[in-house]
Each structure stands twice: as C-alpha cells, then as structure tokens.
C-alpha cells in the first residue's frame, strides 16, 4: 500500500467552486443536504410551534391561522415546502438507487432532472394553493 500523501500530491485539485461544474445528480445531492439542513434549523421548531398552537385551544388555533395568513409567513411556508418536497422526492430516488433500480448513467440523469423539476412544480402548486 502506497502512502496516501505521495498519491495525493499528484492529483489535480479543482477546489475553485465556480469552476466545478456539478452534474445533475450532484445538484440534486447538494440540494438534498441544503434542504435537510434548512429543515433541521427552521422546519422542526416551526412545525412543533404550529402543532402546539393548533392543538392547545380554540384561541391558539385561531391565532395560528391569523399568523400564517401574513405574506411573510406564506413565503416561509413556501420555502419550507420546497425543502420538504425536494428532500422527499430525492430521498425516494436514493431508496430506489439503494435497491439498484435505475443506476445506469442516462437513467440516473433523467430521474435527477425529474426530481429537480417536480420539486419546483409541486412547490409552485403549494404556493398557488395558499396564496
């Protein structure tokens, strides 16, 4: 086994982020991470706060409905909806890839595009429904 450092030195490094052209499955992958991080930081506390208010009493339920009616809240809901929908669809794709379904390059590129576009379209549907 060669020492890792001797090999590593010869490798070209392209860590200049704007120069890296990520393939479509890579875009879906990094968005899976970003959407997951956003949901951990924002969706979980927001969701618990909403669940709490919605079940506590009639008054807190109506308060929540009023708060969610503002356009700022609607924008947050739309953003979080995208994070959830993208993560959900990309996650189903990963479960299928785990089962070795659609792992050849043309297929995986095709379904990556489907995940990316479907996530945006479903988010648009949510936006239209709540606005």
């Amino acid at each position, binding site marked *: 086994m060669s020492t890792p450092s001797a090999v590593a030195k010869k490798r070209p490094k392209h860590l200049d982020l704007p120069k890296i052209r990520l393939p479509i499955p890579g875009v879906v992958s990094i968005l899976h*991470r970003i959407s997951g*991080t956003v949901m*951990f930081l924002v969706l979980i506390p927001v969701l618990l706060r909403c*669940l709490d208010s919605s079940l*506590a009493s009639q008054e807190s339920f109506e308060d929540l409905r009023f708060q969610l009616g503002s356009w700022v809240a609607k924008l947050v809901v739309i953003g979080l909806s995208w994070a959830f929908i993208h993560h*959900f669809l990309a996650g189903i794709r990963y479960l299928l890839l785990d089962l070795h379904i659609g792992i050849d390059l043309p297929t995986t590129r095709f379904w990556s595009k489907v995940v990316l576009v479907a996530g945006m379209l479903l988010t648009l549907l949510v936006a239209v429904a709540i606005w």
Partner: protein
Amino acid sequence: MVKRIVVGAHYGLRDWLMQRVTAVVMLLATLVFAAFFLTHPSAQFEDWQWFFSYQAVRVLALLFFLSLYLHAWVGVRDILMDYIQPVGVRLTLQVATIVALVSYALWTVSILWRG
C-alpha cells in the same frame, strides 16, 4: 492478495440502515397526514382535535417525529463531519444538535399528550 485493514467505529451500516428505516416511516406517516388534509381542506379546530383524539394518530405522529429526530441526527452529524474540520467546534455543534433534538422529543410528547 490484498489484506484489507478495516478501521473505524463500525457504526456505518447501522446508521445507513437507520437513515433508510426512518425515511420509510416518515414517508408512510406523511401520506396518512396528507390524506387528512386533502379530505378536510377547510378543517376547523374541532376536526383537528377530533383527529388527534385517536390514540393511533398520536402514536403515528410520535413515530413520525422520533424518526425525524433520529434521521436529523444522522444527517446533521454527517454534514458536520464533512464540513467542520476543527474538532472542538465540531464537537460543540454535535452536542448542541443532540441537546436540541432531545428537547424537541420531550416537547413533542408534551404536545401530543397534554394533560
């Protein structure tokens, strides 16, 4: 003949499996809750309270949230391991993540089974 030297803490497969099992649990629970919202588009407080009066719904909600917290732990820890290199900072963020998730779990139980 290559003699492989396997190193590490051996939690890889367990966490890989945990991430998939919790994902499937959340997927199924999401479908049940989505079905409620689609069949009750203008749900009022009474409808919502009636839905959560069923013990099965509360248990399903708890299963969803506990899966969410375990799933978030594996995911956040992977992200911290990849992007946060200083050990002290990473450990601090990991501890903060655990504290947040355990607090969320306690909050969830208190919401679903309030007195």
